[in-house]
């Protein structure tokens, strides 16, 4: 793309968004957003979940059209009707969730949708050559003939990047690219980004991980509540200042005060083994104990058995071997209902799949999972009055922002749904809380509140199994830390001494001695 010289002699900005406003019925996603992305730079766009970053990027990528405002590409006013227009203008998008077909090769995935033709025949040879060229030019290290299924997360991401470059992109949008990576992979990615920059490409980098942003970005734009609130240079701000710009207030920190760990075991897991539907062993002889008043944090790259562990503990998945004891009772074969009644609280990883009924009211969601117990029911009958009164209490105590308990859960923001779930699970006085990513996607205030509730319950001898992708949360909130890798617990750490880098190494298996 030609970069016309602007009046001042400087090259025109690669992307210039001015006064962008986008309204959805009842909601303004973006209002008066202004961003200038200099050509040949890495420009970070930061903001909390829900700050309007994704909507803005969808507008830039042509997936949505702004109600007001202007987009200039290389100084030229442009309007995108669809992503195809954006691609033509040299803009490419690497989505947070990869859009690759697992059983196709890299080559096939890359050419999918822009098949190279020689006459009527697909010309794979030329395409393979180009992929090799691009891979070499930017040190992406991608082999066109490998099947995507065999690739790791970092490699898949590089395939996504390559796919975008293959289509001729000069400006790349990366939506939360590090969310799925371990620290080492993040470093590699940043290396690639620097290469791209050196070749004159422009990168828009969306993130809410501030340390990463500070290390890789040339310019930073901060978004809050749908609008741009600041444009700063990474040399001028600290991570903390940036965070406070994002949330508009001071920050909470995850930390436990005094140890409350007792010697009374609550959950004792011995040799827990789970086999997946395809016969693969997904949990391999896990053993651990959580005591009353103890938080056990489990670190790991997603997909290494965390989900299976949680489901086995909840009785959703049947283990092939091993035992699970709650207090003195062997609950290895007990039903989910029995486990819940025995005092296991459950904050699921995917709240929409397992945590709430979106098309049910808040008070009905209060009953969910607690339908056999007071105050939700009495015998076979529901106790509507009791359930509603207790929902009011949770809304109050856990600061669930809602006009009433009769609205559907779908009307609430993710953070408020999460607060409702945590409140619900805590209100049954559990002896054990299984919390998967309890603060994922919630705002800072809610995050602090949830941490505080866990701390308080821990002081009252609650045992907690904490699974999180947020290493700071894990380190700050755990009494004991374990790393899970390919279905095994591979290392234990003392959270008071461990660093995120050490954890990251263990999570990828790099730090293993065997």
């Amino acid at each position, binding site marked *: 793309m030609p970069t016309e010289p602007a009046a001042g002699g400087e090259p025109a900005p690669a992307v210039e968004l001015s006064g962008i406003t986008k309204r959805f*019925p*009842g*909601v*303004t*996603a973006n209002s008066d957003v202004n961003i200038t992305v200099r050509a040949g730079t890495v420009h970070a766009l930061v903001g909390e*979940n*829900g*700050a*309007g*970053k*994704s*909507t803005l990027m969808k507008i830039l990528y042509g997936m949505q059209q702004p109600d007001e405002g202007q987009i200039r590409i290389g100084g030229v006013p442009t309007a995108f009707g669809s992503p195809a227009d954006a691609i033509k203008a040299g803009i490419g998008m690497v989505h947070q969730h990869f859009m690759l077909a697992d059983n196709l090769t890299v080559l096939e995935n890359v050419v999918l949708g822009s098949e190279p033709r020689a006459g009527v025949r697909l010309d794979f040879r030329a395409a393979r050559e180009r992929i090799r060229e691009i891979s070499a030019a930017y040190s992406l290290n991608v082999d066109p003939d490998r099947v995507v299924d065999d690739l790791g997360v970092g490699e898949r991401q590089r395939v996504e990047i390559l796919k975008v470059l293959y289509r001729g992109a000069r400006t790349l949008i990366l939506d939360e690219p590090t969310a799925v990576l371990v620290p080492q992979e993040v470093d590699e990615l940043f290396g690639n980004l620097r290469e791209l920059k050196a070749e004159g490409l422009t990168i828009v980098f969306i993130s809410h991980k501030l340390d990463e942003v500070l290390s890789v970005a040339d310019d930073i734009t901060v978004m809050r*509540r*749908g609008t741009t609130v600041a444009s700063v240079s990474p040399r001028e701000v600290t991570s903390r200042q940036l965070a406070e710009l994002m949330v508009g207030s001071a920050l909470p920190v995850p930390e436990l005060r005094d140890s409350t760990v007792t010697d009374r075991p609550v959950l004792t897991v011995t040799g827990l083994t789970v086999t997946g539907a395809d016969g693969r062993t997904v949990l391999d002889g896990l053993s651990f104990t959580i005591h009353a008043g103890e938080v056990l944090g489990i670190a790991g790259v997603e997909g290494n058995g965390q989900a299976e562990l949680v489901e086995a503990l909840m009785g*959703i998945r049947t283990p092939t071997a091993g035992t699970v004891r709650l207090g003195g009772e062997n609950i290895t074969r007990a*039903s*989910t*209902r*029995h*486990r*819940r*009644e025995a005092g296991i609280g*459950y904050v*699921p990883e995917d709240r929409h*799949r397992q*945590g*709430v*009924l*979106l*098309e*049910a009211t808040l*008070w*009905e969601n209060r*009953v*969910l*999972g*607690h*339908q*056999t117990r007071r105050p939700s*029911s009495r015998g*076979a*009958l*529901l106790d*509507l009055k009791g359930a*509603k009164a207790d929902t009011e209490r949770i809304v109050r105590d856990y600061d669930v*922002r*809602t*006009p*009433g*308990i*009769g*609205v*559907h859960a*779908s*009307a*609430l*923001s*993710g*953070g408020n749904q999460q607060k409702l779930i945590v409140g619900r699970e805590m209100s049954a006085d559990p002896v054990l809380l299984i919390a998967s990513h309890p603060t994922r*996607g919630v705002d800072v205030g809610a995050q602090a509140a949830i941490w505080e509730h866990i701390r308080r319950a821990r002081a009252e001898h609650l045992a907690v199994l904490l699974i999180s992708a947020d290493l700071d949360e894990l380190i700050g909130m755990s009494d004991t830390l374990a790393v899970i890798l390919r279905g095994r617990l591979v290392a234990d750490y003392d959270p008071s001494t461990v660093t995120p880098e050490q954890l990251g190494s263990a999570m990828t298996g790099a730090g293993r001695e065997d």
Partner: protein
Amino acid sequence: MGRFSPRSLLLGLAAPLGALAFAVLVCAVILGVTGHSPLDTVDAMVSAAQRPRTFVNSLNSATTYYLAAVAVAIGFKMKLFNIGVDGQYRLAAMLSAALAGATFMEGLPSFLRVALTVVAAMLVGAGWAGVAALLKVTRGVSEVISTIMLNAIATYLVSYLLNPARLAEDRPGSNNVGTRPIDGGGQVAGLEIPGSSSQLFGLVFLAALVGFGYWFVLARTRFGFELKATGLSESAAVASGVSVKKMVLVSMLLSGAVAGLVGMPQLLGSSYSYSLDFPPGIGFIGIAVALLGRNHPVGMALAALLWGFLDNSSNSLDVAGVPREIVGIMQGVIVLSVVVAYELVRRYRVRAEQRDVGTALGRTKTAEEASA
């Protein structure tokens, strides 16, 4: 909750009324294009509505349609599609008719005979639905496929049994074949309605009772809650300690038991025998009525009444020279448009609620938050 009620009610009515209005419009246009007068049609319908006999017949039809709709709705509530209500009620009606008409029953007190007949019908219906439930729970067979198959098997089974050598009686000269007629003691007396030659089915009260039970179970019991939860999100229900297999089994059995009741008002209130002309196809009407009534106990009652009236006004249309096919077209358009209308209303409701939450919290929520 209270503050959302008036709008909920309005929105609830908007879709079916909109669909009805749309269907009327489509029919009017079709009638106009084919050279019939829409006004004549309205006239014929109005005069039909005023005839006590049509009114009673409509109510009687609605009674059976309602029972079928409830049977379907029990499944629908947990995203279980019991397409087999049709086969279940036919088999149940046939077998219970044979039982009720049997000579050994004639000595029993009337109440006991009726109760036995009804219970037998429920058991047969539940049993037939239970086959599909077992196949789903143990073998993962889709209940849609299995109930359709079971409908066909029921047809053959009824044909086989409806033979003088088996459960039917010989009726020389009638060209019909049916079970032995149920005598007075096994019948359920109808209600005399002034000006009508037809009586109102006594079992209309059974339908009302079933409707009330349906409401109560869904709104007030743990079982009903788990049923709804499973329908809204199976994964969330599982995580909440609901055994989905058990729910599939129980709800299918319940659905089948109610399906077994579908034939009872007609059998015990009018036909007194299961013969070749026993009305078929009510199970499918039940699906349409449940769809139109949004699985709501009152909504389905209104939908059943509408359906019953449309069916029973077709003779009047025929007499007035309006093609009776227009009734079928109207019913078809209603079902199709109501599905669309409900989806539109649902989306509107979600947005409206999100807006409410936003307003109540004094700020505008971002789209990402709303969809998070």
